[in-house]
């Protein structure tokens, strides 16, 4: 299953009510007002939608839209 960037970005940003532009500009999700807990709540849906299992230990590192996308893309495979 391929992970389309635009679709992924819309999904994640839509969940948080932020624009893709804002998410791409920010270094981390924290800058957009989220915290590490918010990320846990979206991971479940990402796991379901893309049929992957996310190692919760990795979450501290995947704290921006781009890093999250790369991580999921790698997990799913090309």
């Amino acid at each position: 299953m391929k992970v389309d960037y635009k679709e992924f970005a819309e999904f994640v940003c839509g969940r948080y009510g932020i624009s893709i532009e804002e998410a791409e500009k920010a270094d981390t999700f924290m800058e957009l007002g989220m915290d590490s807990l918010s990320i846990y709540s979206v991971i479940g849906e990402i796991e379901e939608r893309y049929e992957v299992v996310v190692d919760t230990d990795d979450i501290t590192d995947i704290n921006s839209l781009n890093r999250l996308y790369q991580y999921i893309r790698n997990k799913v495979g090309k």
Partner: protein
Amino acid sequence: MRLALAETVAEKIKGKFNIEERIDLQESFVENGMLQSLQIMELLFELEEIYGVEFDFNSIDLSDIESPRKIVSFINNMLGADKVTLRDMIKCICKEHLDQIAITFDAEKISYQKLLTNIENMVVNLMEHGVKKGSKIAIILDNCMEYIYSYLSTFYIGALPVSINIRWKKDELFRVFDDAEIDFIICSQQAGNILFGKYVAEYSESHGDIKKIFYLKENQFGDRGELFQSLLQPRNIEEVTLEEIYPNDFAMISYTSGTTGMPKGVVLKNNDIYKISKYSAEYWARNDSPLSIAPLYSAQGFLSLLINFAAENEFKMISSFNPNDILKEVSKCENTMIHTQPTMWTLLLNCRIIDFTKFDGLKTLVVSGSLCSSELAKRIEEKLNCKLMNAYGLIEATSVVTMTRLDDSEDIRFNTVGRAIPGVELKIVDENHEELSKGKIGELAVRGYNMAGYYNNQEKTRQVIDDEGWLYTGDLAKFYDEENISIVGRCKDMIIRGGFNVYPSDIEDYILKMPNIQTAAVVGRKHEVLGEEIIAFVVVKAGKDLTERDVLKYLFNKISNYKIPDKVYMISEMPIILAGKIDKKVLMEWAENGIPAEKQVLFSE
């Protein structure tokens, strides 16, 4: 400065007189023939040594000392336990251990001498700026030593710290400032992700009654701004005349919720905080060196600060909440006790480096703050190879109400939140507040160290505390056995997400301010890591269009980030019970199992 515990006395009796059977803490050992008068005398001599008291053997009545509970009551009376204030506790503990290390904060080791000196310097400097007994001081800081100095020096003066949740947005902050009638503020320019400095500047500009603002780095407050560091300038405590503090005097105000609508500031009393700190310390950390992980603005944070300080044995706090940093600190093996809340425990256990973390010397683990499932409790004990104590409490009861004990069986440790700590009474009641028989599920009511009330809010106080002083906790519980209780649910409308208490009405009030919203309701849903997630259900006005994203976008900069719903469902109508009240039980069921097709609202994207 120890307080006597009945369990400790019972242990002493067993050890000293080689008694193997379990000692009932209430039963008279004279009546049951367990101890002879001479043995009781020997016991008392030893207790004199331990607690630093002197019995007047000529005037003691046997009935005063014939059971562990009675002995303890007698000793604590002699120690004047009912009279101790936080100022007394701070002075007494520091002076008893001057040369020893009190706190390790990040890399800094601070002796009791240095702690006391800095506290007293800060007391004199604060008083020179007009702080006095009863002054309300808002504190807006990340975890740091300055926070600890702020708390302890404020308690010393008899002023009231008002700790500010560093997730609050401007509205919430101002509402609390108003409600608490703040006189002084201690703040940094930024705490967490929020630039509080500019909010404080804005508020103080229109509120001339804020007398001084003590800032950490940058002065954004004109001539009312004072550098925090200047408060630590060497002074002499003799320079000031301190007002007397009495045991029932207010010690602090902690805001629990209702930061939309009417905020609720829980007012706590000196002697209650002292007793809870001391008793909890006896269970958690006697001769132990504790490490607690909690934000200092929260009840969990400031109470573990005081409990660990009351343990009179070097305790540690660190500024980072990153699980990797915490485990690295744990690996130094400088602490014998670790304490934090369930979500943090889960994050620590899920951390890859836990398999490389050293846990040498660990004696006790403690979990508190929200319900710890038996699965999580087992995981914690297995991974760290150490017993876990479970503590339950609520800020309206000052904090700890029940605790399991270290020598409890696995059954009790994993399935209950333990039994009452000394001074606390419990009962389980039905909707009419009538006591239920043991084993039945009902609402937990407690009495002992209850708050003085919600600040300036008699009405809300009366809703939770009755005329006999019973506090109705809003938690559903039952007696698991004769003394231990289990929490089985909640009847109050509250969600605990990642350790944060979230009141649905806070979120609902905001959503209802959006145009085109007909009704909104917020419930919790179980989540493996967070404990619970926040689920919002929204009914849009007929003919109007609104998506989940619109709702989240609206809320995003208005309320604290931990209150943002994890999911918003648009539905066609709310389930209702009698009198038009929203049936949240049904909503919780929908959140768990899916919304019936006919209630869903579908959009064409």
